[in-house]
């Protein structure tokens, strides 16, 4: 099928599936977008996907692709290397992301100056294998992402030595929808709180929640959080909390197994639907749980 330069062609093109090498359009007035290449006035697809058109820009959106990333995305990543003034972070993208020492909050307040000793102390802050949550700040010329954790909500979520009060799961990044909140706080029966960090890259960290009690304990909540930020201490977790964390993790994996978008209401509904079975049975009954969750949504 060929796309014409008229406005009416847009709807017909909306769900048109192409394969690599297939001609998308022979009209030379279109601009070349992602997933296409120009071969002598002819636009040809390079991936299996659907043709998308925005004004004069034609692109092919692939059915599946590795995480690409956008500025402002909340991601969860794992430190893969500690380097000169920077950490390298595996965020499941095509290259490791960089986290500059200048782009993190150091313990001791925002106005603290970074000294040479901070560079030497980098491994004490974050070492290889630690999980962090961060935001994509910019991209380098070669497509690598630069991260920052310049907000109290970002930072270390777990270390390689201790799983700090939670568990880490991965799902395909295409199932994560960009939303206002990527830090989700669930409160379940019997005062059990579970926090979920949903990274846009499909990396998700499910942990014991604070239930908002954190801020009231001290006069200076900011100072307290700062100290907690780089701590490696494990909080005590009760059996019920462990089960709740496992249940939420398995519900998210069940949604991913059934190719459902992972959103806050969907996680909540899947959790509700799973309550009549044990947490370890969830993945085997993913179809049933997702059906019930969708019905109640």
């Amino acid at each position, binding site marked *: 099928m060929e796309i014409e330069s008229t406005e009416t062609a847009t709807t017909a093109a909306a769900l048109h599936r192409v*394969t690599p090498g297939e001609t998308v359009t022979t009209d030379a007035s279109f601009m070349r977008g992602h*997933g296409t*290449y120009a071969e002598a006035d002819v636009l040809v697809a390079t991936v299996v*996907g659907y043709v998308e058109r925005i004004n004069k820009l034609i692109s092919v959106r692939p059915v599946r692709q590795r995480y690409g990333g956008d500025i402002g995305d909340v991601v969860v990543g794992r430190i893969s290397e500690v380097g000169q003034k920077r950490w390298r972070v595996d965020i499941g993208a*095509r*290259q490791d992301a960089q986290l500059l020492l200048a782009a993190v909050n150091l313990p001791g307040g925002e106005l603290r100056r970074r000294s040479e000793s901070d560079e030497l102390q980098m491994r004490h802050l974050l070492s290889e294998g630690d999980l962090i949550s961060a935001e994509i700040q910019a991209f380098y010329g070669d497509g690598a992402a630069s991260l920052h954790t310049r907000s109290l909500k970002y930072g270390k979520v777990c270390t390689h030595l201790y799983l700090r009060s939670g568990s880490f799961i991965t799902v395909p990044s295409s199932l994560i929808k960009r939303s206002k909140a990527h830090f989700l706080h669930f409160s379940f029966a019997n005062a059990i709180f579970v926090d979920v960090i949903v990274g846009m890259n499909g990396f998700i960290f499910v942990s014991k929640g604070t239930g908002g009690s954190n801020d009231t304990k001290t006069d200076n909540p900011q100072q307290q959080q700062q100290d907690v930020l780089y701590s490696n201490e494990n909080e005590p977790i009760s059996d019920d909390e462990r089960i709740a964390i496992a249940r939420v993790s398995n519900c998210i994996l069940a949604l991913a197994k059934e190719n459902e978008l992972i959103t806050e209401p969907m996680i909540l509904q899947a959790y509700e639907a799973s309550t009549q079975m044990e947490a370890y049975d969830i993945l085997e009954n993913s179809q049933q749980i997702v059906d019930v969750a969708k019905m109640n949504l």
Partner: protein
Amino acid sequence: MGKTEVVTDEGFRIDGRRAHELRRVVCTVGGESYVADGEAMIDTGNTKCLVRVFGPREPTVRSNVLLERASVVVDFNLAAFSSGERKQKLRQDKRLLEMASLIKSTFEAAILTQSFPRSEIAIQIQILQFDGGSLHAAINTTTLALMNAGIPMLDFVVASSAGFANGTTILDVNYTEESMDVPTLSLAMMPRSGKVVLLNLESRLHLNEFEGVLRLAKEGCTRMYGILDEAVRRN
């Protein structure tokens, strides 16, 4: 039917095919696990090939980092249980390494590697069941797996083989025929542009017959393209 006859007077081959018939092809695109970015499996008759594609990802080895484009890393493996006799794989099997390098150069021509500088695209090929034609089975399966991974390519890469025996050209040579000293030509091409990306002939073939064998292999590629295209659209 004599033992040395590849094609009988009635026009049948050892596995019951006619001279210009392909073996049955079954394609499975995509896997259950999220381990690989792309996965595909093709059964060509009794040859079964599984390919997993990882990437574009951070290169696992520093020396694989190329500043201008992605590097393509191919690991070709023939399972110990794949053929009639169980054999232990040698650490550095030259034949497998050569296969891997052929496949690497084939796909470097097709993948738009320059859009992923400093990255690595790893292709892991497993021949689970071997009945001849492992090279073209591997190429066809890799094409599907790369598309499943969403890696941009100029075109499909389709492969087929053709041979010459008993005064006639035969398509899609199997293991029994290969071991009867049938000269086998492996061809990989990009079907829409008609560009040949790989042409491999390991034994001697008379020049007079070459043209016909090549034409038949091309015909096989075109048919294979129809099958692969249908498989990616269905998935």
